[in-house]
């Protein structure tokens, strides 16, 4: 469990980025952290592996206070992929980039090989294995950055905007990976603006507004609440928006095309049965 207790953070320049965040992560499934630009989302995840220590309050990772552990120690458990891959990539080839953390964590040679192959395939990168990460497109760089953290299978996988620049196929693969990881007892924490993807994943959602958690609940609850979403500068998934416009059709929020189709067909059939 990662526990944030009344966490406040003030940047050296005086900007108050977090104003008393309390969250327990990893107890009840995975979490999407959402909110407008500048709400403090990135600052928050930097606290999860001790990159930032709270100015006030406390963060513990499986009971260990992040003030009392090094980032290196915490990273084995908490793997973070930041928003901008250019900040993370440095190796000469994609393959070396991915193998580097595995070497650092002291994985045996054959395990490094197996895991490297696995993530290259998983992230659709095999054909670029000998290329420089910096020669790749934005979306591809993002996948290299994710591959090089997913490879060590951290207990807590933290991803800042994982779907940025990703096409449909890569999003589906990402979702499958999340399911696999969660099946193994791992927890995914993602910062994202992608409401459609969050709804598909069915994560819990924490809305961050001005450095505070303004709402916490299931994707169903949060992503259908237009007022809450507006406050966080988000829009509901398109299907949810559609059914909000179609007031009175369906009592539950609708997120997927399949649900929408079923609902409309059942309404039409109910109409047809009327005398």
């Amino acid at each position, binding site marked *: 469990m990662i526990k944030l207790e009344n966490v406040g953070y003030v940047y050296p320049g005086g900007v108050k980025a977090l104003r008393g965040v309390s969250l327990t992560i990893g107890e009840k499934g995975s979490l999407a952290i959402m909110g407008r*630009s500048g709400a403090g989302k990135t600052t928050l995840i930097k606290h999860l592996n001790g990159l930032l220590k709270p100015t006030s309050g406390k963060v513990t990772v499986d009971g260990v206070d992040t003030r009392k552990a090094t980032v290196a120690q915490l990273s084995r458990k908490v793997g973070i992929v930041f928003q901008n891959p*250019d900040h993370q990539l440095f190796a000469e080839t994609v393959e070396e980039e991915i193998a580097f953390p595995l070497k650092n964590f002291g994985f045996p040679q054959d395990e490094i090989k197996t895991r490297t192959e696995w993530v290259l395939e998983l992230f659709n990168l095999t054909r670029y294995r000998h290329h420089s990460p910096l020669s790749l497109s*934005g979306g591809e760089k993002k996948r290299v950055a994710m591959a090089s953290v997913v490879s060590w299978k951290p207990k807590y996988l933290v991803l800042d905007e994982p779907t940025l620049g990703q*096409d449909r196929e890569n999003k589906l693969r990402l979702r499958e990976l999340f399911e696999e990881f969660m099946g193994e007892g791992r927890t995914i924490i993602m910062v994202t603006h992608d409401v459609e993807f969050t709804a598909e994943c069915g994560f819990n959602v924490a809305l961050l507004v001005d450095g505070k958690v303004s709402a916490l609940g299931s994707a169903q609850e949060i992503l259908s609440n237009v007022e809450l979403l507006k406050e*966080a500068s988000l*829009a509901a998934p*398109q299907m949810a928006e559609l059914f909000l416009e179609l007031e009175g059709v369906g009592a539950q929020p609708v997120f997927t*095309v399949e649900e929408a189709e079923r609902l409309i067909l059942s309404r039409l059939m109910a*109409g047809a049965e009327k005398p």
Partner: protein
Amino acid sequence: MKTEMAAIEIRNLTYKYQNAEAPVLQNLNLTIEKGEFALVFGPSGCGKTTLCRCLNGLIPHFYGGELEGEIFVDGLNVRETPPAKLASHVGLIFQNPENQLFSFNVERDVAFGLENLGVPPEEIRKRVDWSLELVGISDLKDRAPWELSGGQQQKAAIACVLAMQPSILVFDEPTSFLDPLTARGIFDVIARLRRELNLTVIVVEHRLEALAAHASRLILMDRGKIVLNGEPRKILAEAAERLSLKVGVPSIVLLHRRLSKLGILKDLTPLTTSEMAAQLRGVLTRD
């Protein structure tokens, strides 16, 4: 030489980056007329960003590599025109705003391009204020770019290009770092600029649902080629039909296709939720 021709005219373009094994763009042909709003989409790595770089001369002037074919932008032959001259005809906003900002404060960053062009200080001040106002960050003009969040940085980068008042704007995933409502605001601004100033706009974007209604044309790229190119409703319907695993087709389009196949909906592919809602209301209240 400047002749009266389309805003963008690309003929048989094949491009290979230096030291790359294979070309990224392959025999690509594209004409975009003045005043159009073209939305370019396609799978990751299909060459969208490379195409953008060809439009403002970063390719071949900065990246080198092997370029075959011809690119005309605002009537200028890109291969023969220095990027500095192209900059007041075509402005490019990158995927990553950090690549575009380098100064100590936002105001200076926005003024930089204009200073280089020798624009008088009074005019610079006016245009800087105007562009910052447009993207909604006037209050951040004294802040350093590194103090800004990703979304604020991208707005600053957009302001930098707007200040140059080019006739063609090229956006490479401009809202990647923005939250959805802010992104919608930016798209509205882009659409308004295009209408009021008669700009030509080319936007590379994955999030079709937010932008398709603004576009006059959709262009789908795959593996360095243009595979679909035409009127938005038609292209979305085709993409939903055979490419929905490759590209993120808006869910209203997917729903529309399913219900049309069942004979329930008969009208055109919708571009907005309101259009789709109207179609569904027509069916649901028919009895």
